[in-house]
């Protein structure tokens, strides 16, 4: 039955990417696409035993999109896909959706997010599947028979289904900033207490930027805005929306909190859909080439760094000159560089995947 795995994967991806382009998490939109593609026919023409085997295969495939790192919207799409496949399968009795124990927490968190955002259709469908006993509560997502399977190449489409990186935002949370400010204050005081007179201490010991915390925060905000802008720039067609997007970004008072919930916002959904279109362009150009990576990703490390690394404001000059070894030990190490580094690591990880 494995012979059709590639075809099944590409059909699922096509459905999910159409759903992604709808920029919606509504089941209505999903079922429209499903009907348009006549996806229910995917079970047609399978013979007796194949019915069960094929249902098993496609449910397993669809389930793989239901987990992080895929974006909330794709996961919703995957849930709808599971629900629809489960309901339309021709096997009798029905094949169940396999849920491994290690994924359960992710699913509960997904449910909670959907409840919090009042996505009634998402919650309804998830609970319907539970009530219909559509799940096998398993140890692992597939049966393991010590067979080395051929590795299915991770499709480029999948990359477009993932959340844009938000590591810096996650790392530099409000709590962290508060804690940092607190420690920074204590540290300053401690250093000051070593000296008898206050004016002497101020100049000689305060080697670290005074506004460390503020600057860290500013840099992350800056990074996020740049990220939004970069994504919107990548698609020239909707330049107009891009500006509204930036306004959207700056409007948010508590940026860091909003990033967490961005999956529900229209803003990030447009971000992602553009991202996806960008990737799709690469797919068509890639079909000619023999390697699994599109030409755009075969840029040199330097070019990729230039493209992906965000350098904020007056730090640009500083960062563009090569980092000297002695700089690494200097006390006044620019915070920005750390963040850039994180981002660089993340983007290079993406490339490797």
């Amino acid at each position, binding site marked *: 039955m494995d012979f059709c795995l590639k075809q099944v994967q590409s059909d699922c991806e096509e459905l999910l990417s159409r759903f992604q382009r709808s920029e919606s998490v509504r089941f209505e939109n999903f079922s429209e696409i499903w009907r348009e593609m006549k996806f229910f026919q995917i079970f047609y023409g399978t013979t007796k035993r194949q019915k069960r085997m094929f249902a098993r295969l496609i449910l397993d495939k669809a389930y793989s999109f239901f987990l992080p790192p895929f974006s909330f919207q794709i996961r919703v799409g995957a849930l709808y896909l599971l629900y629809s496949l489960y309901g339309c399968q021709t096997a009798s009795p029905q094949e169940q959706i396999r849920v491994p124990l290690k994924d359960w927490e992710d699913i509960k968190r997904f449910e909670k997010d959907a409840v919090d955002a*009042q996505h009634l259709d998402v919650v309804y469908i998830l609970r319907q599947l539970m009530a219909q006993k559509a799940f096998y509560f398993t140890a692992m997502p597939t*049966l393991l028979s010590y067979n080395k399977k051929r590795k299915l190449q991770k499709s480029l489409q999948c990359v477009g289904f993932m959340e844009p990186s938000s590591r810096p935002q996650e790392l530099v949370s409000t709590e962290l900033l508060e804690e940092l400010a607190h420690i920074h204050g204590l540290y300053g005081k401690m250093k000051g207490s070593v000296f008898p007179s206050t004016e002497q201490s101020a100049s000689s010991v305060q080697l670290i930027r005074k506004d460390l915390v503020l600057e860290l925060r500013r840099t992350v905000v800056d990074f996020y805005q740049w990220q939004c802008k970069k994504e919107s720039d990548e698609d020239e067609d909707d330049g107009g929306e891009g500006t509204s997007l930036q306004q959207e970004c700056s409007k948010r008072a508590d940026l860091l909190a909003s990033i967490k919930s961005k999956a529900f916002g229209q803003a990030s959904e447009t971000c992602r859909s553009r991202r996806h279109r960008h990737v799709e362009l690469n797919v068509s150009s890639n079909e000619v080439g023999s390697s699994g990576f599109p030409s755009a990703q075969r840029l040199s490390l330097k070019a990729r760094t230039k493209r992906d690394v965000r350098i904020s404001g007056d730090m640009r000059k500083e960062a563009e000159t090569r980092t000297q070894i002695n700089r690494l030990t200097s006390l006044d190490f620019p915070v920005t560089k750390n963040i850039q580094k994180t981002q660089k690591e993340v983007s290079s990880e993406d490339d490797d995947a």
Partner: protein
Amino acid sequence: MAASRRPSDPSTNIPDYEYQDVNTKAFHIGSFRTEWLNRLKPSDYSFQVEDEDAFDAKFAQELGVNAETMMELKSVCNVESLRCDDAKVDPEVVPPDSTLQTLVQRKEKQDLKASKKFFKNRHELYADELERLTIGKNPELVDDMVPEGELILTINVFYPDVIEKFNFIRPHAALLMMGSHTLAELRDAICCVSDLQVCGEFSNNPDAAPSFLSKDHFKSAFFYFEGVFYNDMRFPECVDISRTTIEWAESHNFPPFSQAKMEDTRFVDLKVKVGFPYLYCHQGDCEHLIIITDIRLAHRSDCLDKKLYPLLTHKHRFTTQKCSVCHVFIGRWFTTGDRLAPSDPCLFCDKCFRMLHYDAQGNKLGEFQAFPFVDRGAFN
């Protein structure tokens, strides 16, 4: 926050991969079950399906939804709306004009198949048979019902290592067992020809052969899982055949192995890796690989009659070796040094063997040696 999302505490019994898509790390099966049950409501793994009205009422109440919205939600999410087919299309036929890649491929395959003469594989036929017998079967007595929240394990048993050609191609048999089963029950469910082997030369008294079945004489056996040998000690004549290996390992500075009794060990007591090959050894040196391919909570669509477990869901069917005289019946005897035989050794069915080698009074004719033969296909 993202980093701390999935604590990789090795002491947990939440199964995870040791090698991606191949096998898991070792975990305790009983604790794995407990972890699931702690996370689920009894209704989640119940064999009963919740009443639809009750579901709607609960949903509306929990999410603060009014009756009108509920109606709308139900109509939008209706599965029927997903099958918008014109009645002309037959679900048994591959739609010819689909844009889905899966169907394009299926159509091609089917056309190709139609152009050739096609026989259904015997394995497939037999699998159909097994499946039909077991699916969704309910017991006559309530006491025989598989309890809700019970574990179902899928166990693959492979050929003994000596038939190297068949190893790892197909499991010899696949069994479903419950978490409460003991390893001794697994042992009894494994059919192997070497248990039916009869040792000895019986040309002078062929009628005596059946009473020398190996399984009645050599009852010792063990399973090996994660550093522990589980010996069969149910009968007085059983000996601990793992002793030799354990002592050898000790004398060669290997990590220590321990022993337990298979009849006292239930699956829920075991610590195993799912997908990892373990060992079953019987008749001294007949070794089978055992792989637990799946562990999950029992589902309402499972066979719910306890008495039908261990449940065979797959069995490899061998081609059998036929009698060299009649070419009809499966061989039961082989002879050597036999002047009456066309080859040495030579295989005979019981009837041909006796007709050729004995007179009407049962007297042996000529010189030859005869050994009982058990075909691998004897369990087909």
